[in-house]
């Protein structure tokens, strides 16, 4: 589906040009991978990327200089929103009492990874997999440099420990 389809929306007065759309298209794959890491396991990464795109396209883009970084931050914020929502839901579940919960079985390393704060998980991904410099990754996820280094250290330690436990079983 190309740009022409997108411009056929009701009352459409295109607010974006082909260059913007092309840039977003190029960013899709890395953003999807990033969203898959940053968000909860039961959330479709495409949904998150789509929402980030929506916010980007419907907002004021005049002063955004790094679209990729902007969208990654959007994704981090969306992941945080979902995490907060999940916590409220968990609290509600507990308050409701006897609601039965089901548990999916995953390797503990994966579970521990998902238990990390979305920012820490995203940081780990950007630095260790995508090869971002720590300072850039920290800026992208909105953490100060020293805090990012500490978070990375903790996250790596947690992950290593979980992998060792899984391997020892």
């Amino acid at each position, binding site marked *: 589906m190309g740009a022409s389809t997108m411009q056929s*929306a009701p009352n459409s007065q295109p607010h974006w040009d082909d260059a913007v759309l092309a840039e977003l298209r190029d960013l*899709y794959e890395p953003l999807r991978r990033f969203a898959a890491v940053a968000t909860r396991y039961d959330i479709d*990464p*495409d949904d998150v990327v789509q*929402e980030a*795109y929506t916010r980007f396209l419907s907002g004021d883009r005049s002063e955004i200089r790094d679209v990729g970084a902007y969208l990654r931050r959007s994704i981090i914020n969306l992941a945080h929103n979902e995490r907060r929502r999940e916590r409220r*839901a968990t609290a509600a579940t507990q308050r409701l009492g006897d609601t039965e919960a089901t548990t999916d079985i995953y*390797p503990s390393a994966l579970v521990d990874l998902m238990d990390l704060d979305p920012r820490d998980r995203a940081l780990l991904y950007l630095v260790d997999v995508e090869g971002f410099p720590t300072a850039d990754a920290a800026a992208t996820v909105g953490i100060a440099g020293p805090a990012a280094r500490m978070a990375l250290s903790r996250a790596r330690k947690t992950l290593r420990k979980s*992998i060792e436990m899984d391997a020892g079983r």
Partner: protein
Amino acid sequence: MSTDPNEFLNELARRGTPRGADAVLANAALAAQLAVDAGANNGMNSAVPAVDLTQNAARPRRSIGRRGFGALGLAALLGIGGYATLAVQGNGGGADSPQEAVAQLADAINHSDILSAVDIMAPSEVRALHQTVSKAQTKAADEKLVRTATKPLAGLTLNVKNLHTNVEALADGFAKVTLTATIHAQTKSADFGRILARATHGRNTTGDLNLSDIHVANVDPFVMAVRDGDGWYISPAYTAFEYVRLQNHLPAADFGSGAKATLGAESPEVAATEAVRAVAAHDWAKVASLLPPAELPVYDYRAGFAKLMNDAVSGTATVTAIKSAAKIDGDEAEVSVDANGTNGTGEKWSITKSCFDFGQSGETAVILPILPNCFSFSAYAGFFTRTGIGGTNTVHASKINGRWFISPISTVLNDLDSWVTHLDHNTIAQIFNQPLEMDSQGTLALNKPATLPKPNLGASSWFGASSLFRATARYTLTVSVAETVVTRLEAGVKGSSYNSPGIASIFDGEGKSVEPGYDGNEPTFSLQPGVQYSVLATSQAGFNTSSTNTSPTTFTVWRSADAPAIAPSGPGFNGCTVGSSGKTICELTGPRSSDGGVHTAPTGPGSSESSSGGMDTAPTGPGSSDSSSGGVDTTCKLLSNGSQECKAAATNSTIAAAP
């Protein structure tokens, strides 16, 4: 198993099936366009970063829609929708202000998150809901109404645009939050469970609702927020009561008075008997004092409640005798009451284990005009479940802070739970008018009757008019050679209900309806060999299936040539009934059919009794029967070939011949 940490990150990064850049981008562009067109960004806070990237970038305005994450449902209930999230710091303990409570609820709605919505409702009001919500969600998932219990609203997306709130403090801890917003609703049929998807014909729909257009009680839409501990919550009960108060121009509530007063009774038995005495004496303040104030704040609204009841009910009643019994389980109890007396018009009233009888012209007629003279919870239970609460009139009582209260909400919810528990797949398919989703009751053979199951919902006479409570069953049928068939349904109701032929539909193996022809008297169906047909048989409305007098209702697919003709009805012929003596009464004033007046009446197992009026088909039992007074006398005899022949004496018309 990998020991490389990065491999776990990569596994995460690869999860799911990508929809592709074009699809994602196209949907985002469309959503963004709609948001911009609707002016959705005006005045909204941004959930998207403020920061960084541009150093001095202006905070982008927030798009309210949560188009990617999914959808909502409760907005229809409270009339509000989605809103910003980042501005809302949910903590599981209420919100910091009434506005935030609304925003949290709206956010939960916008994300199809029922549990989060419950989390921001007044705890004391929703506590009783926990079991019902849990059961309903599980049942919905079990019966494939929804794809998963945790996402019951998948497929429905609501986006709220231009939400504005205005808070008016009504008392310490009580606030009225007036709302303006536009709600955009969108359904995505593919995300529904199978039955819902079929019920919506696979169509995706959209629509907008401007809350400003809704003026219940001539006021702008609002919700009530209450403070509980340190947090603010939305109160469905206070919202509802405030609407009722405004609609009826009732006195203002005495907010919080119920929480301060010593209410209730020392035991569940006393609570129940005092409630009956208070109703009889029209002591509405006393009645209010026996209802749990945190669950149902009638006491705060007691002045308005009294005015409302006094306007509706005249003439107090006396209580001659009253006793109650309770089954107590911790802080909960089920209470039954036996009482009798005289009502305002001098008639006897009584409450027993099986019946509320308020007298022919008593208060029931004023308060509950839809109820029959003897209102029984068993009929009510029959509505909810065939085997539910056992037909006993009991109310639920709860012990709160050492005092006992009558709990109408728990009483209803208990029955609702029972109904949900007994709700089965076939009933759900009926509710959503998807009979082909029903389980097959078996394979039919031509000319052989099958007994229709009773509808699981039960059906008391006053609910019986709804198609929802008809007995519908699905059968399969194959034929070895091409056949032309007709259908017969033989109702077996004893009592005051009438009988009529049922409704039958036949579908081919692909679910396509077999269009009936017409032979001059009735629909006929042409069936082909090698096709497995689904045959749906539906009884007529008005079945009193909860009655012990109900006989089985049978359904038969007949070869057209073998079929007994239906009992005629219409001008000149009012059909046949079977009297209490077992005699057939055919009200015939002249032959009706075009062939010179030869008619046949279907027979069925067991005899039935029915009253006159609206009857089309007269079931008769095996063997002969003859007519009695009340119409044209008919004499039937069993022929050697198994058929019956009936003759109407007055006209000498043959009216029945069935194998």
